[in-house]
């Protein structure tokens, strides 16, 4: 029988080994909500939808990062709905980058700042370099550029904010849109009920496993568990080198639900286990919400609250549930490394 990948070792094989508990001692992690800074660096001026969780992803990362930060944002809702000329919500320096330019833009800024500091052209200090790109911009078009960025040794954080569609262009399917979802590119019809028949691309582990310079990759949800996302930002920024966070952002317009339920849906995405929550620190996987140990909420409760799945019949709910069960029960490392037997060593 072929030898499959085995747990932690499998990840360590591909990335750096060893985790020190000391790792984040300078990260100044939040211990309670009362410790969270009151000052905002992403304020009024944007015109995102009510209940937009991607906007919360913006607000929280820059709060965690603080004022000594420079940011680029790839084209997408978080560009177009966020930054209208003369009404910017950004208190820190912010610049647009092209849809697939996220990774490269961070490299450019980090390289520029490093050169200027080394040559004494600007004062030497720690400046956080952050790019955010959407699931289409970062997860599809800009994947090569993010890969290139993660191969460098520059200190920077790339956030793939994932609202599971090309939201800005009016909700088209991306490779991170969940199976079966209706989008303007994948409507349901009388002949074909399911137009989007791809499973969500597993982008964070793919990037973690392939890039030995990258010491920190995490998935996150801005609202759940509390502070988890902001602390992940702090960890990413303190560990050094290129890092990546993939966030799951409920989007009332694209997912078709009332804006008041954004928080609930984020929580359900985690509790149903459809979106696994973890961090990969120097090759070690740490579940920040361990759906292996908790009783998972049936995915149906998450799916049926969203209009984009309103065409689902019993078979569809069951299919999604079976795939999620498989991920948690049968994967070598649930949510991260593939199903047993997918990869094996030839004898």
């Amino acid at each position, binding site marked *: 029988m072929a030898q499959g990948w085995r747990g932690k070792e499998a990840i360590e094989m591909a990335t750096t080994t060893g985790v020190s508990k000391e790792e984040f001692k300078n990260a100044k992690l939040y211990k309670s909500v009362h410790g969270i800074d009151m000052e905002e660096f992403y304020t009024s001026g944007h015109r995102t939808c009510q209940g937009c969780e991607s906007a919360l992803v913006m607000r929280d990362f820059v709060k965690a990062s603080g004022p000594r930060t420079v940011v680029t944002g790839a084209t997408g809702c978080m560009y177009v709905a966020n930054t*209208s000329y003369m009404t910017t919500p950004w208190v820190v320096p912010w*610049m*647009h980058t092209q849809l697939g330019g996220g990774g490269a833009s961070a*490299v450019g800024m980090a*390289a*520029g700042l490093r*050169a*200027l500091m080394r040559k004494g052209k600007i004062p030497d200090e720690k400046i956080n370099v952050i790019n955010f790109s959407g699931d289409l911009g970062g997860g599809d078009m800009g994947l*090569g550029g993010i890969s290139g960025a993660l191969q460098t040794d520059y200190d920077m954080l790339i956030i793939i904010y994932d609202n599971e569609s090309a939201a800005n262009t009016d909700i088209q399917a991306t490779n991170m849109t969940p199976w079966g979802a209706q989008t303007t590119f994948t409507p349901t019809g009388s002949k074909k009920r399911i137009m989007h028949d791809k499973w969500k691309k597993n982008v964070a582990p793919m990037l973690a496993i392939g890039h030995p310079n990258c010491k920190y990759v995490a998935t996150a949800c801005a609202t759940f568990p509390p502070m988890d996302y902001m602390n992940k930002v702090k960890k990413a920024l303190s560990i050094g080198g290129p890092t990546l966070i993939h966030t799951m952002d409920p989007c009332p317009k694209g997912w078709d639900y009332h804006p008041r339920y954004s928080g609930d849906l984020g929580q359900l995405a985690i509790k149903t286990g459809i979106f696994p929550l973890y961090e990969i620190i120097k090759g070690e996987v740490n579940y920040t919400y361990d759906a292996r140990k908790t009783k998972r909420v049936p995915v149906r409760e998450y799916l049926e609250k969203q209009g984009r799945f309103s065409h689902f019949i019993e078979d569809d709910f069951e299919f999604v549930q079976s795939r999620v069960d498989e991920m948690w029960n049968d994967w070598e490392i649930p949510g991260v490394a593939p199903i047993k037997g997918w990869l094996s060593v030839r004898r």
Partner: protein
Amino acid sequence: MTTELVDRKIYEREELATGTDAVAHAVRLADVDVFSAYPIRPYTGVMDRLAKFIADGKFDSEYIIADGEHSQFEIAKHASSVGARAFAGSSGTGWLYATEALAATATDRLPLVALVGNRALDDPGAFGVEHNDAMLVRDLGWLIVWASTAQEALDTTLIAYRVAEDPSVMMPCAVAIDGGYLTHSQHIVKIPTKEAVQKFLPPYNLGTRRMHPDNPVSIAPQINEDWGMEIRRQNWEAARRARGVIYRAYKEYNEVFHSSYANPFFEEFMMEDAEIALIGMGTVTSAAKAAVKLLREKGVKVGYVKLRWFRPFPAEELRESLSEVRAVGVIDRDFAHGGPDDGGVLFNDVRAALYHSSNRPQIVDFIGGLAGREISIEDVARMVRITANHKGEGELVTWIRVREGNGAGMERKGGD
């Protein structure tokens, strides 16, 4: 390779250098902070050389090997946005792969300098020179300048930074050199000293647009019809101002380096009392000059204009220079299929400029040297004959050295 003929205060030495070597020296001397590389012939030599400078500790810069030209130019653009002097470059299809980033660099008004080692576009793949790659950005807010010798490539790269970074300009600049003929041919080049370069080239200062926590600005937020016109207009005005800055830059360059650039926009060769003029860009210049010399010996009143700056285009200066000639022949190392009168890109720009000339000479076009094909002295002599004999009727465009019909043999048709 040193001789005592060079002024030691200005030049550190002479070196046998290719066009790309010469540009690499300029980049090093300009104290570039960040450069990003991606391989494609024939521009690549410049990155090979810069990498070696880094490896040998002769150059202090961040050096990034990008994952593609789109990233390569996004990296350079964003390095420039934090106030770092940046350099990148490409050729042919690689330059096109970067197009989106190229356009945004121009509209962001970031003074990146890039080398274009001109190369034919795919398909079919070809290594030889063609000017369509660099010309692609001609309307986008890039300054574009052609150099035709290695020394000129070095000088022009330094001048490019000076012009691009001028506070009244702030536009990216492409330095174009012909693939093969200049990227890979060696010339004796005088390498300036760092001190002299510092005297000529002030530090890059992006001012209030610099991305730094001390200067919290938002760059390039989304606009609508409310502001787009004004932003385009500012860029248009900057391109107009660039003309004056180019004059100033060459004057300063001549002063610091004792060089003798006269009109910065183009070089006039035997243009006094010329009745016929040819105009071209890049390395076709050597064949053109040789042909003009030979014909002058035979009493033909012909001259040659070597155009350097293609953007901004020196329309007024050309009208002046060509005000006495009877006929002009334009050499296009490019194509513009289906364009006005089926002429090349340069042809139609020259024609547009001369429309407002008082004497309005006859203008014909020569398309030649595509995909790296040679343009010989004899070819240029033929162009002069065709230009001189043109009566203002019939074909305006002649393809030079092309197999016609079914492609059998090198039939030489048309005009003479």
